[in-house]
């Protein structure tokens, strides 16, 4: 096999081969670690957006509805963000394994470490309102997002299921007139059995959420009336151009000056 050595050296000389420069290998490793970092960062954003949407759910409302809380959970779990999180975590694992030392660690160790990092960063991102911004951005810019990630406005636009929300147009003795989120007018009848919740009075220009029964032809019988809170204004009325701007610029009719309709950081659900 001495021949083999001679042949190989002859080939190296003939093809003028030289060892690849070190920086190429360093750059490759840096590139993989950068991809890991990006995957982890975006996983944290996805987690934060998912948590944000979960916090937006009106958990106390569904118990009045057919199917109850469990059905609401299944309808409004942020599947899109969970799927994105899963894909990105998979990508992070894949890229870690491609790094110089990544092969040494068992998948469980890599998964637990990545998950811990994503949880920590996701929590910080949530408190920094990054999840809210991500959701708003996707809602406005990503086609079909609102179809696959319905927000609370979807829940409160289901009069046929007993959920109605809108601006109070008129207040009578035992009925109120409201304009729902799609602009349709409703006459909501209130009885002494109707449960009232929330900090505000029922008055013209205010916003309400009503749980009850649709009697058809724009008539709704209220079992529960809630004033204030809930994230139902996404995409409607205001100019959603960013986290802070969305809240401040939303001056649509019926919104109180301090915008207390918006559950979330900066707004109180009382």
């Amino acid at each position, binding site marked *: *096999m001495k021949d*083999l*050595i001679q*042949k*190989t*050296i002859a*080939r*190296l*000389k003939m093809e003028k*081969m*030289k*060892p*690849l*420069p*070190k920086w*190429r*290998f360093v750059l490759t490793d840096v590139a993989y670690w950068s991809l890991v970092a990006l995957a982890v960062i975006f996983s944290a954003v996805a987690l934060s957006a998912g948590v944000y949407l979960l916090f937006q759910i009106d958990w106390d409302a569904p118990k009045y509805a057919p199917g109850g809380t469990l059905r609401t959970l299944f309808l409004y779990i942020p599947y899109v963000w969970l799927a994105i999180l899963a894909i990105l975590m998979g990508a992070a694992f894949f890229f870690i394994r491609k790094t110089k030392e990544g*092969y*040494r*660690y*068992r*998948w469980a160790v890599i998964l637990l470490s990545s998950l811990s990092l994503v949880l920590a960063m996701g929590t910080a991102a949530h408190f920094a309102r990054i999840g809210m911004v991500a959701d708003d951005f996707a809602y406005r810019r990503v086609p079909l997002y609102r179809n696959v990630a319905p927000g609370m406005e979807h829940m409160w636009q289901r009069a046929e299921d007993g959920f109605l929300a809108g601006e109070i147009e008129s207040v009578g003795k035992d009925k109120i007139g409201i304009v729902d989120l799609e602009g349709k007018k409703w006459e909501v009848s209130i009885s002494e059995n109707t449960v009232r919740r929330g900090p505000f009075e029922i008055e013209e220009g205010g916003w309400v959420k009503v749980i009850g029964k649709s009697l058809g032809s724009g008539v709704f019988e209220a079992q529960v009336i809630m004033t204030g809170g809930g994230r139902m204004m996404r995409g409607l009325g205001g100019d959603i151009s960013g986290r802070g701007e969305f809240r401040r610029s939303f001056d649509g009719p019926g919104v109180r000056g301090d915008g207390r309709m918006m559950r979330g950081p900066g707004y109180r659900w009382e």
Partner: protein
Amino acid sequence: MLNLEELEKKTDQELVELAKDDQEMFGALMARYQGPLFAYVKRISQLGNEDVEDLLQDIFVKAYLNLNSYESSLKFSSWIYRISHNHVVDNFRRISARPRILNTEDDSWMRIVRADTDLEKELADKDCAGKIKEAIERMPLKYREALVLRFVEDKEYEEIMDILQKPKGTVATLIARGKKLIEKDIKKKGIRFF
């Protein structure tokens, strides 16, 4: 120019540094590893001598081109075995068909059986050598290479981990499963156990 005696005294790491600037120095590294690598590639690829030599030349060329990726924290033997393993696997994927040459002169595969002392004690048919050999050759590459590295090449788990680029636990699992596969296969062939 270093003479043969001086070259033999050099460590792998020292030869690597010299080879980066002098292709002839790389020849000294090749001389050191061509024997073991030839046997290793032959065992896991099951190709004939000529094909193995072709593969080995490609492996050495790859090793030369990637000399700057080698770091002394890793054993040089692990590093070059890794290149060999990767190249054989890539070659399998390229050609997809794997011609089998039964090398009856190479009884190194028996070391795999002997390493599992329970298995060897249990075998009543001492003339079942051919069937055992077939069992080892038939098993998927990932198990065969783990067994070959451990029991024929006498590599430690740490080295096998570096060669195959798999976690230590996975290496242990591959070896355990490989041994189980041998046992299952030879039992199916009706080879008697005590």
